[in-house]
């Protein structure tokens, strides 16, 4: 997510609308308009959260979640980029692998969790595997599309400059498809978070997803809301990390533009 940052006016507007929502939330709770069982005030949520942090419970949950999502993402993205490139480069690989991927892409990955638990047990393996699967598909599909979309003239230019086949794959096809690969990684990051939370709600005794579901079972609404806030921060963090990495690797892509229609 890359909000247009250049304009301080816009920045202020964004910050104030966020502050407005948070303030309204706090006031609604304080004035007793909504029962604290349904929507406790922001301050109570933060207070409960601080306790969770102090006791070290949060750190434990966060560590398990981060471990799972990191490995799942790395494995899924790594295999996805590799296979996507292979399919984009080799017709033979594409003909043999693409139908398989097209046929399995529509399966909601969470439906595979019971099967994965059966195969890999209740431990970390099944949760990491389901995240890896979820990340793999958008990444492999985007990478392949990115390679197939490379301007053939760039390949000709590289050939005329003396490139070998391997040189073209590494020095033309990979960098040319990086924007598409990143689009896939961003989609994958969203899917990863979704699968992480779901898997932890279904089969875990640790993790932010577990924190949220167990708080809900005990009607601890403050804790539940705090868990959701942590997840929101996790999502923001992963977006920011990917955007920073993209900026560093793709300085040649002109910056993301704001909305086309300016309203001033």
């Amino acid at each position, binding site marked *: 997510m890359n909000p247009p940052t250049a304009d301080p006016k816009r920045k202020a507007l964004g910050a104030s609308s966020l502050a407005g929502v948070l303030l309204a939330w706090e006031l609604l709770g304080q004035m007793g308009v909504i029962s604290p069982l349904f929507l406790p005030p922001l301050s109570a949520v933060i207070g409960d959260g601080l306790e969770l942090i102090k006791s070290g419970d949060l750190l434990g949950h966060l560590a398990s979640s981060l471990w799972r999502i990191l490995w799942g993402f790395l494995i899924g993205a790594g295999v996805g980029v590799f296979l996507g490139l292979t399919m984009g480069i080799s017709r033979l690989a594409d003909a043999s692998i693409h139908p398989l991927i097209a046929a399995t892409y529509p399966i909601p990955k969470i439906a595979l969790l019971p099967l994965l638990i059966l195969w890999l047990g209740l431990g970390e393996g099944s949760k990491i595997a389901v995240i890896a699967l979820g990340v793999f598909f958008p990444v492999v599909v985007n990478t392949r599309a990115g390679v197939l979309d490379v*301007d053939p003239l760039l390949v000709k230019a590289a050939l*005329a*400059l*003396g490139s070998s086949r391997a040189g073209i794959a590494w*020095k033309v096809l990979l960098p040319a498809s*990086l924007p598409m690969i990143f689009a896939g990684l961003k989609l994958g990051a969203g899917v990863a978070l979704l699968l992480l939370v779901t898997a932890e709600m279904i089969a875990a005794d640790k993790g932010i997803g577990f924190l949220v579901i167990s708080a809900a079972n005990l009607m601890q609404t403050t804790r539940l809301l705090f868990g959701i806030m942590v997840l929101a921060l996790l999502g923001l963090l992963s977006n920011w990390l990917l955007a920073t990495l993209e900026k560093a690797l*793709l300085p*040649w892509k002109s910056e993301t533009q704001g909305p086309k229609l300016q309203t001033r």
Partner: protein
Amino acid sequence: MKTKIEDLHKIYSNGRSGPVEALRGVNLEIGSSEFVSIVGPSGCGKSTLLMIVAGLVEATSGRVIFLNERQERRPSAGIVFQELALFPWRTVAGNVSYGLEELGLPKKERKERIRKLLQMTGLEGFEDSYPHQLSGGMKQRVAIARAMATEPRLLLMDEPLSSLDAITRQQMQMELSRIYESGSMSFLYVTHDISEAVFLADKLVVMSKRPGRVLGTFSVELPRPRTQEVRKLKSFLELVAGVTDLLEKEWEPPPLESP
């Protein structure tokens, strides 16, 4: 290095309405350090000819020979495409560096050569810019510098100036003559602009519409270095007129069939 193009035929078999004959028996010789321009109507197979010489497209029959060539690793021919085909993820210096990397030159030597090339093509100070940050004329220079980097004996150019405005275009024509006159490279230069072809060339080849054949060859005996003054010479204007006449016949619509 002399380049001989012998009886080149090209038929594209996968045309939408059956096979397309792009070239029919093209013979052409490019002397050592000679500037050869090719003019012809659009779609006459000029680009195909260049691609074949560059080794990027296979001829149906006939051959291209590079004579007197010592066994060298560098490519015999460099090419500048009409659409330039710069690598957008590489800076100006990075684009120029590409062929040198593929040659396996050490970094220090690459740097030195890049510096010289950028100086020659007027790109100093733009080393670290990306192609999308440059104007059309500057991009053109990058494409030329990139193709020249590996020091090919023959530089192929496919309408490289066709997307520029008239003024930049004339400037680039002067630049090209200067680059040609200061080196020992041969040029094979395709254009549809007759006066550009005459201004640059030692030898001018006129091609027919599809299937492309050589209609005629003109020897261009204009003084070098070529300056703007050359455009006002009587011999320049006569040549332009002569080539125009030849092409005009080619452009005539086919006669109506008599009843």
